[in-house]
Every structure is written in C-alpha cells, then in structure tokens.
C-alpha cells in the first residue's frame, strides 16, 4: 500500500541518517584528529562537560524511572476519580494539601511531573497539581535535611526556604485557580467531560467514545479492543492531534489511515480515550506487560527532554566561569534576579542545591540565596522542558511568570523584613 511503501522508505532514511550521525559523533570523540583542529579545540572542557553531563543524567535516572513506574501503576490500577476524593474541593484547602504532599512523597521535579500529569488526568484539580509540582520538591524531609546540613548556622535560610516555597505555591495555586479555565494538559481534553470525572488517557490525543460510559463490565478485554477499533472507524468522534507543529506527518498519516487503509487502524500514534474496564482477573499478565509498556513509553517521552536539559546545564557548568558571573551583582533585586536565572540554568536537584548555594554565601546576600533556593527547584531548564511535554505552552509560560514574580517579590520582602 502507498503509505507502507512510503513509510518503509522514510525509515531507511532515518536509520541511515541516524547511523551516520552516530558514527560521526563516535569518530569525533575517539579520533578527534581525523576531523581536524576546527572540530573540538578544547578537549579538556569537553571532558568536564562529559563528567557533568553523565553525572546529571545518572543522578536523575533513578528518580525519573521511579516516577514513570509509579505513574504507570497509577494509570493501570488507580480507580478513576480517586484523587478527587483525596484532595479537598475547597481551593485553599486543596492548595494546602498539595503543598504538603511532598512531605509524604519526597521526589524532585523530574520525578514529579509524570506523576502529577497522571494525577491531573485522574481528576486532581489543575491548581493543586501545579502546587504539588512547585512546592513538593522543596517542602519535604529530604530537602529539609539537606538544607539544614548546608546552612547549619543559618536557620533563617532553612525556614525562609520552606516558608517562601509554601507562600509562592499558594500564590501560584490561587492565580491558576482564578485565571485558568479548561484543560491545560497537552494533548488531553477534559473540557467536554460534563461529569467532571475524566476518563481520558494522557499524553496523547483523545478519541472520546461515549459508549464507554455505559459499557458492560463483563466486557472481555480482547473483544473490547476489536470493538473499539471498529468504533473508531464508524463512530462520530472528535480527535485532537498532538502538537501538529512537532508532527508534520501526523495529519496526513491519519487521514490516510482512516480513509484508505482500514487495516492500519489498530496502531496509530495517538490514543483512544476509552475506559475499557481493566478489571479482568484473566488479564493479570497483560496488565503487567501493559505497565512495562507504559512505563517504557513514558520514559522515552520524558527522558529526551531530561537529557536535553541535562546537556545544556552541563554545558553551562563546564564552559561558563562562575567567578565572572559573581561580579554581576551581589545585593539588591538584581542579585535576586541573577541568582534565580542562575538556578534556572544550573538545573540542580533540590537535594543538593543548598550546598551549591552555600558556596556563594560569602559573595551573595542571603536574600538572593533564598531566591536561588526557592526558584531553582520550582523552575529550571530540565524541569521546564518536562513541563512543556505535560502542559500546554501558554499555561507553562503563565506559571513560569507567576512563579518568577512571586519568588522575586517574596524573597525581596523577606530580605527586607529580616535583613537577609
């Protein structure tokens, strides 16, 4: 068939290009002299880059892996709407609970984003989810201990960090509650769901099939899938395409699939929103594989952004001398802003950034360190890239702006009030 021939050809090209680039990269590192002097003049810098890059990736790996497994288990096993019962309906109370969730679930932001994405899909209010993503990485026992160890003699920074994080979380949570309406998950849609509980799968576009609601619980899984695919062709459904800008071929492929190639329908690269009841004891084995499949897929969804962010952060670490940065500003709001930007590009884990901050204690004011300690775990390069996979870009920009403003204002006020 037309599409298949086309597809095969394009994949050959992909493999060829990929192999070529990979080979070139290998040659460049193994035998740099082959590429002449212009390629990498400074190999010592490259060695530093490697150490930083591999270090950041290896350190984040356990957390992102844990997170995609937890997320996949929740996807498979958590009843719909469960989280809605746990988080109070009152927004203030909801924000407070979300802000303290980190105490029982101490994971940094690269571990939180896949989980919160799933929780929001399972009915967690958006504002609560955002507060969890922002505050969870700071207000938790692990970070409390690390900050205490790094600033043993300056508890005002420890309490300031915890307090300001909660304050900023409250500000952002309320802003989101007031300002933002509708579904903000990327590729997801909860808008059409009148009942408020959503049964949508995440991360991929939605084909909402209304028949799912009143589905017979005894429905057999396999049958269901088949039926589902039939419905796909026949039923009136609405689909949203995942980020067309990123997938130029997507629309074309799809229309092709639907109109010309019914046999192609089973797998396309978006999801079907349906609630085929997963609770068949006979399919335990399948569910185990489903969790693996899901976790692996999510790892590839998130991991790419994580590695990209890690590469940029490592480049900053390896090639940008800090002594020159330190001369920019040491007090006043410029230093607060500078330290926030610095925390953003460094993309450190919230468990270790206190020690890095402490190395700046003799050159920067405590207030600007506070801004560093609060803004960094909330917003940083690798976290921002991961947020963009989970949420719509406009919403992410809004959250970044509110968070930045709140941290800046909060840290300046605290600095003024307590003379930090």
């Amino acid at each position, binding site marked *: 068939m037309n599409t298949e021939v086309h597809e095969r050809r394009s994949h050959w090209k*992909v493999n060829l290009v990929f192999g070529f680039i990979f080979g070139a990269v290998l040659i460049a590192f193994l035998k740099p002299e082959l590429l002449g002097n212009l390629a990498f003049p400074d190999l010592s810098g490259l060695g530093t880059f490697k150490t930083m890059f591999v270090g*950041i990736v290896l350190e984040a790996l356990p957390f992102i892996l844990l997170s995609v497994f937890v997320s996949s288990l929740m996807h498979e096993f958590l009843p719909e709407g469960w989280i809605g019962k746990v988080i109070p309906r009152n927004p203030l109370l909801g924000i407070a609970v979300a802000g303290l969730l980190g105490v029982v679930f101490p994971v940094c932001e690269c571990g939180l984003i896949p989980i919160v994405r799933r929780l929001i899909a399972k009915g967690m209010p958006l504002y609560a989810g955002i507060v969890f993503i922002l505050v969870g990485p700071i207000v938790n026992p692990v970070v409390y201990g690390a900050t205490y160890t790094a600033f043993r003699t300056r508890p005002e920074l420890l309490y300031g960090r915890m307090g300001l994080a909660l304050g900023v979380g409250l500000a952002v949570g309320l802003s989101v509650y007031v300002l933002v309406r509708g579904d903000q998950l990327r590729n997801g849609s909860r808008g059409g769901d009148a009942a408020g509980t959503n049964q949508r799968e*995440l991360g991929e576009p939605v084909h909402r099939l209304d028949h799912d609601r009143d589905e017979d619980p005894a429905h057999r899984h396999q049958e269901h899938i088949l039926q589902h695919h039939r419905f796909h062709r026949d039923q009136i459904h609405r689909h949203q395409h995942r980020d067309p800008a990123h997938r130029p071929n997507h629309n074309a492929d799809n229309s092709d699939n639907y109109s010309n190639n019914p046999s192609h329908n089973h797998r396309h690269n978006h999801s079907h929103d349906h609630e085929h009841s997963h609770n068949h004891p006979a399919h335990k084995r399948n569910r185990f594989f489903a969790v693996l499949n899901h976790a*692996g897929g999510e790892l*590839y969804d998130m991991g790419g952004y994580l590695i990209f962010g890690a590469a940029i952060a490592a480049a900053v670490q390896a090639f940008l001398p800090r002594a020159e940065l330190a001369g920019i500003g040491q007090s006043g709001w410029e230093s607060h802003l500078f330290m926030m930007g610095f925390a953003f590009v*460094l993309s450190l884990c919230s468990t270790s950034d206190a020690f890095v901050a402490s190395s700046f204690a003799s050159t920067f004011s405590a207030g600007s360190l506070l801004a560093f300690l609060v803004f960094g775990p909330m917003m940083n390069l690798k976290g921002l890239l991961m947020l963009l996979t989970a949420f719509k870009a406009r919403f992410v920009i809004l959250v970044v702006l509110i968070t930045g403003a709140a941290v800046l204002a909060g840290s300046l006020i605290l600095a003024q009030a307590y003379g930090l």
Partner: protein
Amino acid sequence: MSTMENKRLARHYGFRGLLLGGFTVYIVHLAKSGSLQYYIAPRMMIYLKLAALGLFVLAVYFVYEALQLGFGWKDEPDDCDCDHAPSRSKWRNLVLYGLFALPLAFGFALPDKAMGSDVVAVKGMNLNAAGAVGAARTSPSPGGTTQSRADDTATNGNVTVGQPAAGQADNAPAASSAASDGASSANGADPQSEEAKLQQLFPYDEYSEDFSKLGIRLYKRDLIRVEAEGFLEVSTTLSMYMDNFQGKTIDVSGFVYREPDMKPNQFIVSRLAMTCCSADSVPYGFLVESPDAGLKDDTWVRVTGTIGRTTYGGNAILRITAGKPTKIEAPKDPYVYPYNGDIVQLAK
C-alpha cells in the same frame, strides 16, 4: 494487524530496548570499574543500581516485544492500547534516540576522569569554608538575631581573649555541659576556669554550638589533621575561629590548584566537595605558602605547616606556611562529602 505496522513497531521497540540495555551495561561497567564515584556520590549509588535493574527489565521487555512483533509470533502489540506509541515523524525519532544515545556515546568514548583543576577554574575556589557553611555576614542584621554576634566575632576575628561574647549569658548552662564534655582531655589544673576561657574563645549561638565544640576539641591539639571525612566541617570550624588557631600545626592533603593572580610561592591545596552528583561539586581549599611551590596543577600533595592568616581577594582567609609539600598518590575516592553525623565527633 498489518505486518508492516508490526515491523515498524518492532524496529522502534528494538531500538528502545537496545538503548536501555546500553544504559544498564554502562551503569554496571561504571560500578565494576569503580568509576561511578566520579559521577555520583556514594549515598546515591544504591538508587542508581536499582535503576539499572529497572532499566534492564524494561530493556528485556522491549527486545522481547520487538522479537515477537518482528517475527510475527503474535499479531497484536502487547500494550495498554492508549498512548506513548512511537512517533511517525522521522526527525522526532531521530532526535529522541539521538538524545538517549548521547550520554552513552560520551560515556564510552571519553575516559572517566576525576574532576580537578579545570573544574575548579570554572566553578571558582572557596578559600573560606565558613563563608560557605556557616556564612558570616559582617553587617549586623536589623532582625537582631544572636547569631550575627557570633558570626561577627568569627569573621572579623576581632575577639580578644577574656572579652565575653554578648550572647554568652543565655548559653551558660549549655556551655558548662559542653565544657564537661571535653574536660577529661584537658590537662589544666583548674579545669573549670580552663573551660570557661575556651568558651570565650569559641563563642557560639544556638545554631553554631556544634562548631564551637568541635573548635574547642581541635584547639586542644598541637597537630590538626584535616581528613577527607569531615573535611568541610573541620575547614569551616578552622575558618570560623581562624584567629584561635594561629600558630597551630595543620596537616592536610589535596590536589594543587593555582589562581592566575597568585604569587609564585603560593598554591592552594584543594578538595572538591560533592553532594549528589558531579554537577553540584564545590571546590574548597587552603592557601599554602611554601618555598617549594613549583608543583604542577592536579598533583596530589600532603602539606604540613603552620596556620596563619592573610587576605586574599579582599577576604580574610586561613594561610598555611609550609615546608616542602610531600607528593602522594591520588586517593581512591578523590572527593569529600558533607558529613551527616554529629560533627563534634569529627575530632576523635
């Protein structure tokens, strides 16, 4: 299910499995060769090893799935039928798999190397550990915390023996208990007054009490060894109460590092402190003045010398006046780590 579609998925799953398998192999390789410590701190290693296990399970699953689909052993891809299906955009896939291959390419292609002078040059040397851990602000805070007093005395080093620190009265009960702590090792005929004198030498507030206790213990020695364990905390104590330690003998090991503007007889004996991973490492060190300072950067040396004080870059720092530094083997673990236990016990 169309065969072509299955084959396409099989290729993707195969690729994914191989990449994740590559990560597993890389982590095991690092752990076996002992190079893992160049990238992450020991306390994080167990998590990474567990992660390698998880990656291995995923890799096996992906390869198994790829084989099943690729050879037509089954018709339906085994998944949750929902999302995360591989993209059809070739560029997207290229970038994605390229990104996953990148750490592996770097990992296997470039040698594993301990961070040294080149990293310090980028990150910037810290010569006053007290500025880091116990950070002293010289301007008294309007909030009026007791701490600023202790910090002031520590930083400026203006405290004279016998002048009681202002915050002292509140701390009297705690102080006497601290005193009895070290009383056994004190040789003074009148332990009571001896300890009281020490208390005044090492003023503290409720937050820096441990540093004061550690300082008193170190003060009772003629030779102060700065070991890898507790390097940060001992350095901090020495910097906080810099003036008390003038004239004492110090023994410290580290690698040689030089700033461009240093005198020819000066160098820094340095250690990198790592918390979680290489990216958060921070260099700390002591300025050494020695007639024989012509060692190359990154040479590991052991320095024994007399503690003094000087200013460098406008900050008061501790200086070691030493003879000839002894060259030593680079330690198996070149980094130091924040000490999580009771820091007073560091002066065993």
